[in-house]
C-alpha cells in the first residue's frame, strides 16, 4: 500500500486534485439524491392485497412479539354471527369456547351488538400476527381482517426481516406521514412506491 510522504508539498498536484474530485463526487452524489428525495422518511408496511397470511410475520420480526398485528376495518366487516375469522371451521363443540376459536391466543374479542350482529375487536397485546384469522376472513368473509405493521411497535429496521422473508413481497416502504395501507382506503394512493424487499 502506498505510504504517502509526511511532507505535504510532496503530495503534489495530483493528490490535491484527487482529493478535490472525491469531495466533489461525494457532495454531488448527496445533492443529487437529496434533490430526488420525495419523502423525508419511510416506514415499512404490508400491502393487504398482496399478503397471503403465510404466518412469517409471526416469526421473522426482530422483535420478540411481532410488530405486525391484525387490524379490523369495521366498515368492511359483515358482523357475522358465524365469523370465519373468529371460529374454527371445524369446531369441536358448537360454542365460542376457546377451543373453537381460530385465534391461538384468544386475541379476538366478540361483542354482541344487536341480533344477529357481533363486533370483532383485536386485542393487540395478544395478537402474534399468525394470520390465521386473516386467512379465514379472506377465504369466506369480507376480508376486513388483515395484517399491518403497527408503527407504535415497529423498530423501523433498515431492511425489515419479515420483508426479506415474505413470500408475496407484500412489504414495501411507504411515506412515514401516511404509514398504513388500510383496505377500503387505498384507492386514493398511488400504486407501487417501491419494490418490496429492494
Amino acid at each position, binding site marked *: 500500500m502506498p505510504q504517502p510522504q509526511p511532507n505535504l508539498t510532496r503530495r503534489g498536484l495530483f493528490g490535491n486534485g484527487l482529493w478535490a474530485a472525491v469531495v466533489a463526487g461525494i457532495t454531488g452524489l448527496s445533492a443529487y439524491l437529496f434533490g430526488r428525495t420525495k419523502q423525508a422518511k419511510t416506514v415499512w408496511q404490508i400491502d393487504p392485497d398482496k399478503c397471503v397470511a403465510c404466518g412469517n410475520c409471526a416469526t421473522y420480526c426482530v422483535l420478540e412479539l411481532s410488530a405486525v398485528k391484525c387490524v379490523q376495518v369495521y366498515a368492511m366487516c359483515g358482523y357475522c354471527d358465524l365469523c370465519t375469522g373468529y371460529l374454527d371451521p371445524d369446531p369441536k363443540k358448537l360454542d365460542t369456547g376457546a377451543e373453537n376459536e381460530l385465534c391461538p391466543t384468544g386475541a379476538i374479542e366478540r361483542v354482541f351488538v344487536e341480533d344477529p*350482529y357481533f363486533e370483532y375487536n383485536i386485542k393487540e397485546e395478544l395478537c402474534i400476527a399468525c394470520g390465521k384469522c386473516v386467512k379465514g376472513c379472506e377465504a369466506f368473509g369480507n376480508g376486513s381482517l388483515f395484517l399491518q405493521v403497527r408503527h407504535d411497535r415497529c423498530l423501523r429496521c433498515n431492511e425489515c426481516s419479515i420483508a426479506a422473508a415474505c413470500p408475496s*413481497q407484500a412489504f414495501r416502504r411507504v411515506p412515514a406521514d401516511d404509514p398504513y395501507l388500510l383496505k377500503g382506503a387505498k384507492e386514493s394512493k398511488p400504486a407501487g412506491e417501491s419494490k418490496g424487499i429492494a
Partner: protein
Amino acid sequence: MNRRSFLFAIVLAFLLSAPLLAVERFPPPDFETNYSFPTTTVPPPRVDQYDYIDAAVLLVALAVATLLIYRKRCRKGVFLLMLLSLAYFGFWRNGCICPIGSIGNIVMSIFDPAYTVPIVVILFFALPLLAALLFGRVFCAAVCPLGALQDLVIFRPLEVPRSVEHLLRLFAWLYLGLAVLFAATGAGLLICRYDPFIGFFRLGDHSSTLILGASFLIIGLFIARPYCRFVCPYGLILRQLGRLSRRFVTITPAECVNCRLCEEVCPFNAIDKPTAPWPQDQFVSDKRRLALLISLLPILVATLAFAGTRLDGILSRSHYTVQLAERVALEQSGVVPDITPNEILAFKKTGRTTDALYADAAAIRRQFRLGGGILGAFIGLVIGLKLITLGVRWRRDEYQAHRAACLACARCFEYCPVRKK
C-alpha cells in the same frame, strides 16, 4: 345437526362455489340501534422526531472525536466517546440507520427510480466519508457502534501478518461488490441482512444473527476488530479516503526519535516501521517484476470479468423474482409439492401471467450477468493493484500510523515519550 353447524355447512358450500377473491359477501349491516362503526387505529411511527437528532448527534460526535484525537490526543476521551456512541447509536437507537448499511440504500436509490432515499440516510452516508477526507477514520475511532462493541472485547490481540491481512481483506472487497450488486438489482440489502451486531443492539433477535455476532466477538478477543478489518464494506471505503485525508494521525506529537516504544502497541497492526535502506542490487529485478505485474493487470481484469458473467445463474437466484419464476416453472412442469408454497399462492393472487414473470426473471438474470462481469473486473482490478503496490518499495524513516489501516483509536499516543515543544 343443530342450527349452527347446519348454517355453517350451507355458508361453506355457498362460499366455496363463489370466486375466491375477496368480495363483500356479507354487506355491512344496517344497524337498528344507533351503533357507529369504530375506526381502525393508526398509531404514528414511534420516535419519529429522532431522525434529525440522530444526524445532529452524528455530526457532533465526529467533531468531538476529531478534537479528542488531534487536539487533546487523549485515549481516555476517545474511549468515553466510543462508549457514548455505542450506547446511543447501538443500544438506544437499536443500530438502524448506520452508515455501513446506508451503502445499500444509496446504491438502491441510484438504480431504482421508484426508491428515493430519506435525507437522514444521505447524511449518515456522507458525513463520515467527508470527515475521513479531512481527518481520517475518526468515525471508526469513536462513533461507529459496531467498531465500539468490538473494541471493548479486545483482550490479547495477535499480530496478523500483513500478507494475510491483504488476503483476508479481499473478502471485504468481494462483500462490498456483492452488496452493491444486490442493492442495484433489487435483491435486497446484504449488509443489513448480515449485520453481525444488530441482534445485540436490539437486545434479542433471531439466534442466527446472535451466533454470528458472538463468533465475531470471540474472534475479536484475539484478532482486534475482525469485522472492521476484514469485512466492513464501509470501512473499506473509509480506508481509501483515509489515504487522501488532509490531516492524519501521527503517533508522536513532534518528531519521531525511533525509540521503538510504540512498535507493538497497535492492536490493528497499523503502525509502519521505518524501512531498511534500499538494496541497490535489487533495483533492476524489482523494476522488471513491476513491469510484469502491470502487464498482468489487464489479463487479470479480463479473466475475472468473464468469470463474473458466468455466475449469473447462482447470483440471480438471490432475487425474489428469479426464485419465484423457478418455483412456478417447477410447478408447471408437473412436480407438484404436497403443500402449495405461499409464493405460488401469492403469485396467483396477483393475476399476472407466467410469461410476464419469466420475462422479468430473464431481464433480472441479464442484469446479473452484466453486474457479475463488472464485479469480476472490479475484483481483478483490486487484486492487480494490490500486487503492484506490494511490489513497490516505500521509504520511511520513522514509525508511522498507516493512513488507511489506522482506526485513529489513539492508543499509541501515550506510548510516545516525545513531548510537544
